[in-house]
């Protein structure tokens, strides 16, 4: 297919009424999730995953993706108006966005956040359109050893880029891999860790774990702090959403930089939209002519992180669509969305399911346009939504989790699993462990085991096969280097900071 054919084919799929409707539903839910603090994107996607089981694969994935990129748009609204990030990736937006609102410039801040998100989001989808097909070609040179090594590299990167303790991150990855082992072994049919429960023989599904850890776990953490819910919307009526010429001049470099850096960070496993927004803001501070002004309520401080977190999403789709490797917990859930319909993303996706591949990508162009409309003329709706107290919201989230758990397999035991993993998720947050790593390892575990098994079978039982395959060997060496060097560099950074504090003191 040449590009013109691709364009018309992709648009013809994305513009089908059903796909348009699901893109709109995804964008609306995404914005809602982004606006409301207390429910994250991962939780929302895991809750809605069961509703896609019976539907067609293309609209289902269009909707789930819409929730993901839609939430990034919505997150900025809460950051600017309430000084609470609706989404983790919008934390940085609070710094300048809320101060702009206090200075009476909430309108331009919200407007610039929407425009920067739109420009960067569209940029990353353009890059995805042109880069995914050639990268999928590289994937054809990958055999089982390379996929096993790639899975190990992915996990190593995720662990290395985790925000907390690396030991705890590795422990979570191990725990996720253990959960992935549960079920009947595909080689000789031995039951592993099923404890006689027939529901566990097919393994622990991603959906109940994600719904429990992210849905119920998050609800429990927020319920505990319900007494202290003193959310106050700073502005009741937003005026003057369109930024002026000076605002555009001040923001253009920030948007361009955020688009490029965000996209590149999104490509890396573990390099999610949160890291992208922080990295971009830090760079903006470094290259700015007036770094001291950042954080005092300047528009480029809103444009840079918003552009970066939206651009990272397009980047994150590349490893998933071309290699079948999820780079974050949300991507792992999207992978589950593919696999539920019997489709394995990877190099063959573009050839075997072109309607899904191109339909999904082109729906993102349309989705970004929808979100611009949803977040500018309809901003008053989201301001009203912000006033809904969490006490009203959490019972609905909980009910949706429990019903969703039942609909997975029409089994009451699955509901019990979800409640159990809810407790696990709550405790993980309390004890300072990152739940996202557990989910990712749970998804990567079976991919890793299957690739390892095939590699060893291919070599006649010889583990040295990894040493004879240059790509696999390079990926493994890179994983080793990452795991060894990251703790060292992190402790060096800590020492430097500690020395700085002592000297200042």
């Amino acid at each position: 297919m040449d590009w013109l054919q691709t364009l018309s084919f992709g648009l013809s799929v994305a513009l089908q009424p059903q796909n348009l409707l699901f893109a709109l539903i995804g964008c609306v839910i995404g914005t809602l999730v982004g606006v409301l603090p207390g429910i994250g994107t991962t939780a929302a996607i895991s809750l809605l995953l069961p509703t896609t089981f019976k539907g067609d694969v293309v609209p289902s994935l269009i909707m789930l993706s819409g929730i993901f990129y839609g939430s990034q748009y919505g997150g900025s609204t809460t950051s600017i108006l309430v000084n609470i990030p609706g989404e983790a990736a919008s934390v940085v937006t609070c710094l300048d966005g809320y101060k702009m609102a206090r200075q009476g410039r909430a309108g331009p801040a919200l407007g610039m956040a929407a425009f920067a998100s739109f420009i960067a989001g569209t940029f990353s989808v353009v890059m995805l359109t042109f880069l995914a097909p050639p990268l999928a070609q590289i994937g054809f040179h990958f055999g089982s050893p390379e996929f096993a090594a790639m899975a190990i590299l992915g996990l190593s990167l995720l662990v290395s880029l985790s925000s907390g303790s690396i030991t705890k991150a590795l422990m979570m990855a191990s725990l996720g891999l253990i959960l992935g082992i549960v079920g009947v072994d595909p080689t000789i049919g031995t039951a592993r860790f099923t404890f006689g429960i027939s529901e566990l023989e097919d393994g622990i599904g991603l959906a109940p774990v994600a719904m429990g850890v992210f849905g119920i776990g998050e609800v429990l953490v927020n319920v505990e702090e319900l007494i202290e819910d003193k959310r106050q919307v700073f502005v009741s009526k937003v005026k003057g959403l369109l930024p002026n010429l000076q605002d555009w001049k001040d923001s253009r470099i920030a948007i361009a930089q955020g688009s490029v850096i965000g996209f590149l960070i999104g490509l890396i496993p573990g390099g999610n939209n949160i890291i992208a927004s922080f990295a971009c803001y830090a760079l903006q501070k470094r290259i700015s002519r007036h770094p001291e002004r950042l954080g005092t309520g300047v528009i480029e401080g809103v444009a840079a992180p918003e552009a970066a977190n939206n651009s990272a999403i397009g980047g994150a789709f590349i490893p998933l669509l071309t290699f079948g490797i999820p780079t974050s917990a949300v991507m792992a859930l999207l992978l589950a969305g593919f696999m539920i319909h019997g489709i394995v993303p990877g190099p063959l996706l573009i050839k075997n399911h072109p309607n899904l591949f191109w339909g999904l990508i082109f729906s993102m162009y349309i989705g970004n346009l929808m979100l611009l409309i949803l977040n500018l003329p309809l901003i008053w709706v989201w301001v009203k939504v912000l006033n809904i107290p969490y006490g009203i919201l959490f019972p609905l989230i909980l009910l949706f989790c429990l019903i969703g758990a039942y609909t997975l397999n029409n089994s009451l035991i699955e509901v019990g699993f979800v409640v159990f993993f809810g407790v696990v998720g709550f405790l993980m947050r309390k004890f300072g462990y990152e739940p996202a790593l557990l989910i990712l390892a749970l998804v990567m575990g079976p991919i890793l085991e299957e690739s390892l098994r095939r590699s060893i079978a291919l070599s006649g039982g010889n583990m040295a096969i990894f040493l004879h395959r240059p790509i696999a060997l390079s990926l493994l060496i890179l994983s080793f280097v990452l795991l060894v060097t990251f703790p060292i560099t992190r402790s060096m950074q800590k020492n430097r900071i500690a020395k700085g504090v002592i000297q200042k003191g």
Partner: protein
Amino acid sequence: MKNLDRISSAFCFFLGLAVLIRGFQLKLKVSKEMGPGLLPVVVGGILAFLSMVLFFRSVVHGDSSEREGSFWANPYGWKLVFLTLLASGAYPFSLHYLGFLLSNFLLLFFLFLVIARLQWWIAGAGGLATALAAHLIFVVWLKVTIPQALMGF
């Protein structure tokens, strides 16, 4: 709470050890192929080792998740969490005995009234409206097979 890492690492150590032992009981190698026990042995071993590292580090250097005050964010937090969990845990049983509509109503009424502290009539009306909406979405629209409760609906 100064020993959160110690508690969690001790739990993970025993979990890792149990997985490791079970992995050895399963076969590590089947003819020239990877056996079902290989990955559990490797991953269980790694988890047990890392847990030990975390435990000793927390003993020597202190807790990484050390924070001021109690495990709970506020003095009544545990009650809210416990009651929410109780309601969630009871839900599968009520679904079995009381059916979809009534279970949903009771769950929502309880949470609105006890946790969110809404007035009883607002909690009742909200619970009823949401239970009906859930019935329309899941049973009528999505045609989910709901368990046939003892009460027959």
